[in-house]
């Protein structure tokens, strides 16, 4: 870990003021940033500890939504009665991730901004365009079991590792940020980005911007939903593929269905175009399969992760079935419903 300046502002305004500059990082739970600093993957010159900012509450929004403060721990969010009752998909996705200890420390804002788990990104002795622009991508042609099958570029095939964000993508969450140029609201779909030619940019935050909260619009996906996570062990592993589904069923037809995938791309992967295939349909393996094919259109394996494509397809079909039958995946009983 390098030597750095440390500031602990008391207000958001002070934090943003201190947050300008090249190698400045905001520190919240630290469950990812501190590891990155220890391994010299990230070497901020200034660390701004934002843990004292008043961003640690969950508030009602006009119109029936909720605002999740950026500093609310993942655990508190998942177990919040309002979140559990109104956004059980989000609770489920959060509880599918990490361990209780990590969820207690990790914050909502930090979850959005966590970095990839690509092996090469974490090992400074290897090439990585995300860590060191222009050094190449070690994962292409290398050990890429956990890498992207969708939206990758020839510069980077890393994935975004979050579970929470996959649910947020389905819930059409809005990320509230503030920065030197004032406040902005970024739809979750536009928050994370694909690697393209600038794989070092995980998201669309501008320099110095700080996430203050996450808004959940009023939606009713409390019955037909699921978060299904497929991984290399039954807990405490990042997703090989995860599937978040929120569905409304009217009578026997699907009035609306939203599906996002985790573990397969540089951002939660969702296609509103493909979702049209589900709208107005009866739940059936054929309908779900056709949708899965559409959502996975253009999927490309990198060799060691080729299995993710059929796994994702099967997972999507199963998750849609779970949601349609109102039998969401339990995150404690690891038997897949």
């Amino acid at each position: 870990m390098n030597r750095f300046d440390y500031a602990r502002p008391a207000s958001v305004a002070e934090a943003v003021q201190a947050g300008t500059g090249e190698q400045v990082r905001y520190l919240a739970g630290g469950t990812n940033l501190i590891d990155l600093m220890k391994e010299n993957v990230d070497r901020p010159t200034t660390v701004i500890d934002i843990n004292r900012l008043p961003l640690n509450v969950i508030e009602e929004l006009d119109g029936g939504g909720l605002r999740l403060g950026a500093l609310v721990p993942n655990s508190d969010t998942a177990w919040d009665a309002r979140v559990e009752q109104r956004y059980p998909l989000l609770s489920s996705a959060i509880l599918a991730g990490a361990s209780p200890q990590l969820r207690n420390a990790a914050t909502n804002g930090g979850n959005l901004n966590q970095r990839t788990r690509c092996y090469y990104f974490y090992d400074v002795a290897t090439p990585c365009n995300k860590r060191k622009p222009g050094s190449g991508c070690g994962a292409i042609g290398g050990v890429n079991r956990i890498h992207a099958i969708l939206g990758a570029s020839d510069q980077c095939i890393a994935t975004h590792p979050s579970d929470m964000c996959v649910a947020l993508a389905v819930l059409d969450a809005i990320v509230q940020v503030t920065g030197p140029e004032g406040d902005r609201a970024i739809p979750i779909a536009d928050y994370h980005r694909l690697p393209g030619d600038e794989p070092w940019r995980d998201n669309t935050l501008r320099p110095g911007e700080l996430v203050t909260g996450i808004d959940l619009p009023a939606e009713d996906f409390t019955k037909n939903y699921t978060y299904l996570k497929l991984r290399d062990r039954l807990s405490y592993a990042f997703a090989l593929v995860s599937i978040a589904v929120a569905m409304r069923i009217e009578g026997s037809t699907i009035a609306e269905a939203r599906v996002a995938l985790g573990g397969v791309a540089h951002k939660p992967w969702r296609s509103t175009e493909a979702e049209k295939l589900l709208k107005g349909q009866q739940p059936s393996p054929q309908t779900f399969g056709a949708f899965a094919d559409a959502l996975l259109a253009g999927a490309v394996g990198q060799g060691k992760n080729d299995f993710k494509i059929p796994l994702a397809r099967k997972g999507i079909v199963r998750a849609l079935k779970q949601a349609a039958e109102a039998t969401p995946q339990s995150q404690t009983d690891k038997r897949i419903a």
Partner: protein
Amino acid sequence: MATAAKIGIGSAINRVDGVEKVTGTARYAAEHPVENLLYGYIVEAAITKGRVLSIDEDAARAVPGVVEVITHRNRPHVAWTDRSYQDEMKIPGSPFRPLYDDRIHFSQQPIALVMAETFEAARYAASLIEVAYEAEAHNTDFDVALDEKYVPKKKRSGYTPPKNRGDAAQAFADAPLTVAGDYRLAPEHHNPMEMFGSTVEWHGDGSITVWDKTQGSQGVHAYLASVFGFSKKKVRVLNPYVGGAFGSGLRPQHQVFLAVLAAKMLERSVRVTMTRQQMFSHAYRPQAVQSIALGAETTGKLTAIRNAATTSTSRYEDNMENVVTWGLMNYDCPNADAEYTVAQIDTPTSADMRAPGAATGMTLFEMAIDEMAYAAKVDPLEFRLINYSPIDAMNGTPYTSKALREAFREGAEAFKWSERSAEPRSMREGNELIGWGCATGMWDAQFSKTSASAKLSANGHLEVACATSDIGTGSYTVMTLVAADTLGLPPEQITAKLGDSDLPAAPVEGGSWGAASSGAAVQLACQAVGKKLLKAAGKIAGEPLGGAKIDDVLFEDGCIVLKDTPTVRVPFGDAMRAADLTEIEEEATAAPGLRDMWKGLHKSKNTHSAIFAEVRVDEELGVVRVTRIVDAVAAGRIINPKTARSQILGGVVMGIGMALHEETFPDHRLGRWMNHNFAEYHVPVHADIHDIQVIFVDEPDPEVTPLGVKGLGEIGIVGTAAAIANAIYHATGKRVRSLPITIDKILE
């Protein structure tokens, strides 16, 4: 007088060091407080093979707090012959010497050590070091290396060459039923909880005290004396607590070398610890491929066993394991041959990891046996009974004991194996296919020369001591129970000391020989104390024991008691006072061949187990859950059923990891392990573990070791992964021959 139930051998008690461990007062190697410490951080090679051309240390040296950057260029003198670096494990070859010269033998090799006033400063400075290399072509691909596999000329001590019998090639060709295939095991890293670390206290008079994470304080002691030229009296090595090791601490690891090197050079006390990432820079379980061909009659009787295995080693040492012998020993089959070779890759030398050889070779063999059972349409358990060998079928020698048949029976009953439906894919519940599989486990029952002392004070306190280690296995508790048993004292009055090179000699703790060996030595030392007590009692006026001989008395509740007249009791204190003794101290050595200590000298000595596993596999998604394991273990006499059960549970959990999770991924272009951290190197977590039932089968065996103890450290892992793999086949009808069985292999 009412007496409490005697606590001794066979009593299930909590580990005596449990409170220290859970309250944090047990100090591990990198936790011992020493004043004025310097901290070291290891700089690792970024290339796999070649030379260090230059090291730019300027930026590192400029970091406040940095005291020195130690490289091969400025290091103090160290020994220069291979012989000086040989450790207790005696791997043939040229042992790795940290910072010896500019040669790079493997990726993550230590090439510099940054010493600073804080760990953080050292670590940061280490990141600023720029190294220029001259890279040479390397190969870390085991499959490529297989082209040049070979039989090492010089054999590692402990290696047992397989003995062929009959004509296996012909018998295989003639067999009506055959199975043949390559079975594989991925490289695994030990990853004990405690990272390797050493604290060296520099006393200023040329002597040092070293707290080291090791499985053998005396092995490290000898190594340090030999490598650095210390007089043996000037070095003391301590390892009172070890946070697991699984074999990675059998050999001195490079951090202890580096720590002592730095202490010597800087004449200061130092501490060097590895990070979790750096735990992948040394020992690992060799990658393996085993070509197994089996032939059988249609009845299921085996007629041919062909068992050939290759495991990975480094370029500089030939690490050999007993991989192919197990199958030949365990099965009654007239024709059997085997071959064992190694193949070199550019990694550190592979190392012993829990049940080295057997965890690989018996497990993979048991997967092939399962295939043969199906080919013969015989229940896999029945198949094992049809081919049961009461004697060691490879050596033709009887076992001191082999209660494997009883283990099968008791295990099968507990598991309800008889309710199994024979056909694959014939059991299901909801989306899950259910499979039941079984396997046999085997390990050696070893016993090594070990000394111990026992010191009884007049106040009735007994201290027993031995330089063995407790790597989480329960050695403190074993020593306490044996002493309690021998001298009839309650455990609260007994202190066990271990983990100190100054204590009576013991081998490195490994191979499951610890309890049998240190237990035997402690018993002998306590018996010697008992004899002294009896002699002292003879000085009591009126001779209440009436000149009784040692066989006429027993020791109970701190008293010498006449066997024939139990009302005649002489408290230890009375005896010692009569003889004017304030304490009695005795030392004794137990060793095979000493007196009548190892009656079964010319017999085979092994532990056995019968493992039954239930898996549930999501039919579409390939997600595996191991929902039930029954492990019935025949391991002779059990000293402490509680810690013994824990040993087996741990082995079974590790076996679940071997079956489903553990695998280190190399990038062959970079010659480097890529998932070198705990997020991406997977071991089982709580969610992966369901019901595990441990059964100890009654197996009295007075011949195997003095206490009739066989050892339990490794048997729990052997075969467990096979039982799971076989259950996965039974569930899915899909045969996966390479471990670990990850989701992609099931869906393939």
